[in-house]
């Protein structure tokens, strides 16, 4: 049997100055990331249609800043030899195995999100049980603003285990589906015309670039469904758009005797016979 010969790893001398330098670099990196994030977020609101392009630069810049910080700490301050680097990696592996594997998975998930772009900052996505606008892609988690104004932090590793539905895929415009239900006895064709005009006159509708809207009619046993598919100019106005079209369409429906479905109780009338 071959004799095991231990590798002689020279002890790493870490003095107080080295630790303070490392902390200082991390603090500078953190502050730089916060400042850049703040400045670009403010700037993005001033550039109109390029809002999402600017916002999507934020997570990439954060990764670059933290990458440079770590490179500096390990490369310049700790000045590790290749043997020390291997030893450190082994220790890191053990740490991941024992306790911080979730954090590591989140960080890897963050890198995948940045590179593969299943969603981007500004997209409306559904991941797991949550639906909302992506406001930040961090090192550990993705932050979503839900329609009821709740900020949800979704761990980045969910990208490996959950399917993600992105309604916008990097575009500021978003398709919105608006359903209205009318009684089968009402004039469906006229109702479609009203709904069409409600969509195309809405102040929130996005019409250019041939992203047209469409109106569909579907028949069900006790009602008819009118469905409008149209783009809203800014995904943040999704619910205002729906509400605007619904309110104005129903205002015209009531003027033109187009009625909502009547409540039908199955079997009603049979008992009376």
């Amino acid at each position, binding site marked *: 049997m071959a004799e095991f010969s231990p590798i002689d790893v020279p002890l790493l001398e870490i003095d107080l100055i080295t630790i303070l330098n490392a902390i200082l670099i991390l603090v500078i990196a953190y502050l730089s990331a916060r400042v850049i994030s703040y400045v670009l977020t403010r700037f993005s609101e001033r550039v109109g249609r390029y809002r999402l392009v600017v916002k999507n630069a934020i997570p990439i810049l954060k990764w670059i800043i933290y990458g440079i910080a770590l490179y500096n700490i390990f490369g310049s301050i700790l000045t590790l030899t290749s043997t020390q680097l291997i030893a450190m990696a082994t220790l890191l592996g053990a740490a991941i195995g024992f306790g911080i594997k979730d954090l590591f998975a989140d960080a890897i998930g963050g890198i995948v999100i940045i590179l593969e772009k299943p969603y981007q900052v500004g997209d409306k996505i559904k991941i797991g049980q949550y639906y909302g606008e992506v406001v930040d892609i961090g090192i550990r988690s993705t932050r979503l603003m839900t329609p009821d104004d709740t900020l949800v932090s979704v761990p980045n590793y969910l990208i490996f285990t959950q399917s993600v539905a992105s309604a916008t895929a990097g575009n500021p*415009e978003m398709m919105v589906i608006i359903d209205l239900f009318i009684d089968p006895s009402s004039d469906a064709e006229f109702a479609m015309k009203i709904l069409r005009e409600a969509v195309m006159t809405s102040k929130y509708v996005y019409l*250019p670039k041939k992203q047209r809207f469409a109106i569909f009619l579907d028949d069900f046993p006790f009602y008819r469904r009118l469905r409008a598919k149209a783009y809203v100019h800014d995904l943040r106005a999704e619910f205002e758009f729906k509400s605007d079209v619904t309110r104005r369409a129903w205002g015209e429906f009531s003027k033109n005797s187009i009625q909502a479905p009547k409540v039908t109780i199955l079997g009603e009338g049979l008992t009376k016979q």
Partner: protein
Amino acid sequence: MSEATTELSGGVIGFKDEIAIIQSAISDFKKTGQKSNIAILSDPFGGKTTLIDEIEKINSEIVSKISFSSIVKNKDSLKVLDQSNEILMVDDCHFLYMRKIGGFAIIEDFLRMVPSYNKLFITTWNSYSWRYLIEIFDIDQFFPIQINLPGFTSTETKELLLSMYDMDQIKFVEDVDKKKIRSTPFSLFRKRQKAMTAENEVFEKIKQVSHGNPGIARIIWDKSLESQTIKPSQIKAFSLRSKPEYNEAFILSIILSMKSINKEELMEIIEPESPLDMILYKLSKEGLIAVDEERYSIMPEALYSIIDFLKKFKLVW
């Protein structure tokens, strides 16, 4: 506010190519009966009414002309088209619709007439209304010839503005220290510019500020001229003092698309709970809109700043 004219006693300034295209379409229609309806498009104050008036003057015996000055609400207004000549000019067709539910009946009737009548239609449209109508009615299919009125060059601007005066009646005064301009760090990277006279500098600046829009050029000229004297520094580009909110921007987009509109019509378009009076007051105070005989229109100097802003909101395109 009326559209400024580009007319001279001997014809109009500019638009030579556009007049030739229209005359050719009229000639083809007369010779062969083949009709290619025409849509003339321009921004407000861009000179489309002047152009159509010139076409009417050239072909006075064979054309009929109808001009709309406010939103058409009565279908009977279109009956006059039946009695017109074979070549029919319709000015300001954007008044044929209103951006509200039920506001498209008139333009739908008009678009039914355009292909079915054996008449050549020469129409003018506000370019922002036109682009909106393309998206909802494919209106461009009805008018195979579309003429986008080009902006004036600085030479045409000069010719237009000086046509109202005798030679040497206007004094151009140099008041910009060119040494100071040259000392800026950016000037190192610029190509050496030819020395420009005060006169040429004035017209170049007016052309830039007005984006070549002849109506706006004339208004800027009138406002910059003091006692028959004009200085380049008096010609200033408009800049928005504050960013309008979305509701205000939407109202601006409606006014821009309609050229002019009254308060009752605006109330029909926007949601009833909107504080219209307050918004109109604010827009007026900011110098973005003007009121003339109870009709609101975009302040000419502010036109292109407003358009840039509305494009960011995707309210016009």
